[in-house]
């Protein structure tokens, strides 16, 4: 049980990180979808930019996760 308790802050932190990253990724994805729907001919460029931004966000989230681990 004590072992469990010592893990709780880490798990809560991980959950917060995942919530934040999820919101961010959702916004990126939603904006990209809107952009593609508005200008289907620019889909390739939008996708590339989306992947780059998502990758940056992901890097940040992973960094935080590993710092917490």
């Amino acid at each position, binding site marked *: 049980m004590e072992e469990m308790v010592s893990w709780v802050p880490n798990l809560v932190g991980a959950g917060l990180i995942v919530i934040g990253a999820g919101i961010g990724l959702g916004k990126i994805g939603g904006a990209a979808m809107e952009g593609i729907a508005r200008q289907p001919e620019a889909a390739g460029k939008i996708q590339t930019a989306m*992947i*780059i*931004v998502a*990758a940056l966000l992901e*890097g*940040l989230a*992973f*960094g935080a996760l590993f710092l917490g681990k």
Partner: protein
Amino acid sequence: MRLAPNTLHFFGIILFLFSTLSVSAQEPMAQNVNDGDRVNTNSEIDAYKNHHIKDAHDFHLYSYTNDAGERKHVGFPLPVIIWSSNGLATFMSSEFHHDTDGKVIVKQNGSSFVNLHDKIYELEAGATAVNFDAEHHPTNAALPLDFSITKSVFGILMIGLLMIFWFSGLARQYKKKQIPTGFGRILEPLVIYVRDEIAKPNIGEKKYRKFTGYLMTVFFFIWILNLFGLTPLGFNVTGQIAVTAALAIFTLVIYTFSGNKDYWMHILWMPGVPYVLRPILAIIELAGAFIIKPFSLLVRLFANITAGHIVVMSLIAITITLKNELGAFGSTSLSFVLSLFLTLIELLVAFLQAYIFTMLSALFIGMAVAEHDHDHGHDDHGHEVADAEDVRADFI
């Protein structure tokens, strides 16, 4: 159109391989349920997972227990090369007899080595057995420099040879004819894809050529290793932080040494910013260039691949963990469906991570070699108008 049936065959074989992957990975576990002394409990599953995602000193394919109740391991040993306190020591990993708990001691060149959780420790002089502290850390042994051909190094070598074989074959084909045939037809669009979608748009039409070799090598290296990580061979090379660190440091070295005057100017003495802020910005930019960028590269690849492996293994472990609730058939089929689905996603992730690593490397290199157009880059007061690239640089 002669290719079409061949291609179908090829994809058919791949699909078959990946569908059998999950099955073959499950079967030993399913049998283990009847076998009291193997993976059964949650902690054992955890240990199995950890063992899988870590590097190993021998190439272990599968284990079974024979009729006499003896544990047999099928695989082959790999050479161990260690720079110990008494100089270089080399022996085959088979001398440990598959022991990873530090029980078997190998004596070589006056040093004693033990294999503790797939790490080779050198015992202090005079010690005859490993002593552990309360947290199961060895107290009388140290980690020497380990240049062994471990499973990961073996995988890297294999993939390297495979890449050289494939792509030099493609290069040879061009000498004879304009359009490659056979397997070259699969490789050529990939090469063109990396060149046209990753290298050219991020580095620029003029300078991309110099860096394309590195980008292509890294792209195919990561992608093929990711894909091999999905096979039941048990590679987890791109999930080794040392490997991704080496890759990220290569990118760091390349963009640091190919950076032009503008690049360093923007890092050390940012134009268009009040003088007071410039040293602060320089510190931030230096941290960004030398720590954050490579760290995000290496952690992203490592974490994605490791997480993928852990999740696939966890889903496979459903066979055991939910056996009591769902019965043998139910848990196995549930785990089969889920892990098949996840393996398909992992196929995508394998490509995506290779793409993103290469893409970001190309982006960083492109930022380092970009030539800023100073004619229209400044407004009336001589401040630089932020263009898309600068904004992007602030993100990273």
